[in-house]
């Protein structure tokens, strides 16, 4: 994915220290070769220090590594230097690597000619490279020319990606956009004196004109067209250029990054790009359709791989600390309150959320605060998936061949690729999911937010190390795979969710579970029931589910389904709450329903 050459190391990599500089905290992990395999052994964390008084990201890195030193007894730091390579079994590390999303990540503006064609392709290219897209400008976006120019002037992106037109097509629209950008004289977010990097990945015939118009005013890089013909996207060259410019220009301007780049033994990757590498690898290795999510303090990244097609989106203002107040603003109070199993007055809740926004590093200290954060997380996850579904689509605007049998099927071009019935695995990462005190809390947050249909497996990043392993995989595939399999991926279990609705207590489906030891569990799942059946991570079971006639498990209404299911640290979750999931509208009935469900799966201490 990254265009950089893998780092060349002269010595074997036996001890690796990796950090992820997040918007809130910098997380460090130590990976050591134990016998023939690599294991993650220690972890440290410290507040990220892009802010005053430190204004140097490496300070947080050194603090997080100092925690590892204290816990492991290994001497890693020599003053402000990381000792590489290892000097003896207890001194130094062989390589230091890092990812970063601190300082607001990579913020990009993209342009295209037709909004839902080249505009969206450009957006996908930027998102895939780990960027936050702050605006999409297109010739047909409905804004008047002077409004476009004003918009370019006021936004201060780190980089612009220009696309538009197919190769050999008309050049006038893309040249017109170049003229607007030149007239706006865009300035970068950091550094008043350096030129704004601009990647041009549109109609190759327009390159000479674009060069003439923007060559002087921007740090222009020309690359292949991201949409050479209407029917095909070619995103990789533009993504690679974005990565290169991110390292060469943008990161050099952020506080302390020059030092960080010097410290690291491999190129710094944007956090979402590193997580994307991991998600793609899981899907490819196991031939799965998956949805992955990384819910952070400032943003929520969603990744999906369906039928081998990788997509990534970032919801820039949905997160659990800096952006928590925006989750409230976007979801609305009622949507957050519907997951809270007690009564709290609106003013108190709103003040608490704002206080978390202004003091983003605090953690819930009481059970009710934890439940409120989990409620907000459900909504952030839900909204980010809606956003993802709208962008992870087939190419729009292309002709489809139709036969006579398609006449009655009103299928549009560009429909979403996300099919919850075909989804095999959900992978969760990020503080609120990785650090939930009970794993069942992570599982239910994802089930409530995503409403998986039929049979879906769920997993979580054990202690939040996917970014670290993403960057590690670019230099040592085996080390990354070893740690991923043994220490990172925690399988939670499988969720079985019939599609349909019915009256609480009415029969939804009958099931027969046959365990490996030939033990059999027969039962009936009623509407409104949530049931947890223990099944350990290394075990499989066979389940036969016979839904009632209006209920579907993927094979059709009333059709029986037999599946082999995998366990996990939580087990099998039989979800009879119906799909789409509807919570009682009456406050007391809703609190009663939540209390029943939470208690049924042992979600919180008081409910267990």
């Amino acid at each position, binding site marked *: 994915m990254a265009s950089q050459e893998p780092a060349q190391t002269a010595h074997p990599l036996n001890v690796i220290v990796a950090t992820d500089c997040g*918007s809130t905290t910098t997380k460090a992990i130590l990976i050591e070769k134990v016998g023939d395999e690599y294991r993650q052994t220690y972890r440290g964390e410290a507040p990220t220090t892009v802010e005053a008084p430190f204004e140097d990201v490496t300070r947080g890195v050194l603090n997080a590594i100092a925690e590892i030193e204290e816990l492991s007894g290994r001497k890693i730091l020599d003053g402000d230097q990381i000792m590489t390579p290892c000097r003896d079994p207890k001194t130094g590390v062989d390589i230091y690597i890092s990812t970063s999303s601190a300082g607001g990540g990579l913020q990009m503006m993209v342009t295209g000619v037709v909004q839902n064609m080249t505009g969206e392709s450009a957006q996908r290219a930027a998102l895939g490279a780990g960027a936050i897209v702050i605006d999409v400008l297109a010739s047909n976006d409905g804004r008047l020319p002077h409004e476009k120019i004003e918009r370019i002037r006021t936004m201060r992106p780190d980089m612009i990606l220009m696309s538009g037109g197919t190769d050999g097509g008309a050049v006038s629209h893309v040249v017109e956009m170049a003229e607007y950008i030149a*007239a706006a004289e865009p300035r970068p977010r950091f550094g008043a004196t350096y030129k704004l990097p601009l990647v041009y990945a549109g109609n190759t015939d327009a390159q000479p004109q674009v060069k003439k118009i923007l060559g002087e005013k921007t740090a222009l890089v020309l690359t292949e067209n991201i949409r050479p013909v209407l029917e095909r996207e070619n995103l990789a060259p533009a993504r690679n250029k974005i990565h290169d410019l991110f390292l060469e220009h943008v990161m050099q301007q952020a506080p302390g990054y020059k030092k960080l780049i010097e410290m690291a033994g491999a190129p710094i990757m944007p956090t979402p790009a590193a997580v994307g590498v991991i998600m793609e690898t899981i899907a490819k290795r196991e031939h799965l359709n998956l949805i992955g999510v990384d819910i952070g303090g400032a943003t929520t990244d969603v990744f999906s791989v369906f039928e081998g097609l990788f997509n990534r989106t970032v919801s820039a203002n949905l997160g659990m600390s800096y*952006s928590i107040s925006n989750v409230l603003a976007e979801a609305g109070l009622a949507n957050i309150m519907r997951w809270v199993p007690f009564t709290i007055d609106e003013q108190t809740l709103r003040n*608490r959320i704002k*206080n978390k926004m202004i003091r983003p590093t605090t953690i819930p200290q*009481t059970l009710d605060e934890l439940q409120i954060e989990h409620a907000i997380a459900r909504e952030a996850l839900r909204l980010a998936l809606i956003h993802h579904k709208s962008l992870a689509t087939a190419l729009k605007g292309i002709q489809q061949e139709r036969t006579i049998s398609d006449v009655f099927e009103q299928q549009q071009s560009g429909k979403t690729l996300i099919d919850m019935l075909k989804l095999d695995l959900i992978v969760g990462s990020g503080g609120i999911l990785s650090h939930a005190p009970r794993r069942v809390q992570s599982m239910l947050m994802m089930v409530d937010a995503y409403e998986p249909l039929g049979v879906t497996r769920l997993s979580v990043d054990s202690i939040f190390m996917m970014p670290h392993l993403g960057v590690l995989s670019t230099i040592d595939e085996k080390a990354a795979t070893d740690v991923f399999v043994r220490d990172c991926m925690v399988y939670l279990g499988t969720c079985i969710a019939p599609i349909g609705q019915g009256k609480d207590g009415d029969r939804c489906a009958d099931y027969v579970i046959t365990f490996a030891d030939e033990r059999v569990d027969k039962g009936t799942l009623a509407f409104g029931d949530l049931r947890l059946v223990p099944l350990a991570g290394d075990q499989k079971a066979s389940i036969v589910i016979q839904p009632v006639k209006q209920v579907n498990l993927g094979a059709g209404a009333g059709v029986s389904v037999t599946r082999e299911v995998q366990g996990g640290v939580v087990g099998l979750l039989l979800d009879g709450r119906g799909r789409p999931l509807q919570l009682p509208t009456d406050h007391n009935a809703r609190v009663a329903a939540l209390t029943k469900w939470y208690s049924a799966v042992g979600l919180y201490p008081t409910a267990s």
Partner: protein
Amino acid sequence: MPHSYTPGLTVTEQTTVRRRRMLSLPGSVLVTIGETVRADQAVARAELPGKVYPLNLANQLGVAPDEIHEYLIKKVGDPVRKDEILAENKPLIKWLKTEVRSPITGVVESVSSVTGQVLLREPPRLLELLGYVDGRIVEVIPQQGVVVEATCSLVQGIFGIGGETRGEIVIAVTSPDEALTPRHLTADMKGKVVVGGSFVSSDALARAKEVGVAGVVIGGIHDKDLRALLGYDIGVAITGTEQVGLTLILTEGFGSIPMADKTFTLFSAHAGQPASISGATQIRAGVIRPEIIIPKQADAAGDHGMATVPQREGIRIGDQVRIIRDPLFGKIGEVASLPADLQKIPTESDVRVMEVRFADGSRAVIPRTNIELIEGS
């Protein structure tokens, strides 16, 4: 483990601050190193390029883009007045003539024979950058700005709205736990920085705007009152450009929270003195906190070479801390002990904690990440 704590907000009687004053685009610097500047004095100036108006001449004249040069009356770089003719065709029959007039007064910036477009630009607007604090210029960044140094008392707030302003400090309440109400706000507070106690209601804010105060500094506010003041909900804490008629700075947070004694006492000692304040807050991507800077009088400042940079060595027993998360949100105490091992808290999370002792002798165990050092001496 000295590393896991949240750096606190500075409240200090004497410090030296340096404020980097940068133009948003290159211009000229109006002062020199060593010069003494006032807060309201322009230190640099730039010309903001005027707005651009695109005009598709090819379409309006009904000609091909590469032909428009033949019809243009004005050339690139020519000044134009509003309604002046930019281009015209020359038909054989006079009444078929089309004239394209300039929609603005400005200059012809560019003409494109690919798109048939002409870009017109309005005259530049002059941008003046003020000194913001009374102080001395210690650095000049050519064409970009300056660094002003001032010896002052400094209070950092936790959150604010509204931009830079200045005014005389006036204490409107008698104690830090008293709420600021409309009756505290009198006509003679116009143009001043009003310091309240624990809380400001929407009524009191409306009265403050009516009086025309420059700024309000307060312990807390309800989220709903802030929304009422702004007319929208703040999603991400990046502020400073709001135009609500005053600058508002919270020292403690959201809710009704008494202002820390130390903060209130400092303000009280400087009642009647001029202060520079800024509500600009940016919690993500390089923290900026709102601030109140009270410059020392010139004779008290003395000669000083370097700005003092507070050295933070981590947290120690006896340090004053503020609890920044419920259930004890806003309480102030001192560090009683710093256990090294992780402890289980009621959420079942294993976290690093500290024991905090309060003025009444009671103690509480608090996650380290939920406290904030009260910094400055």
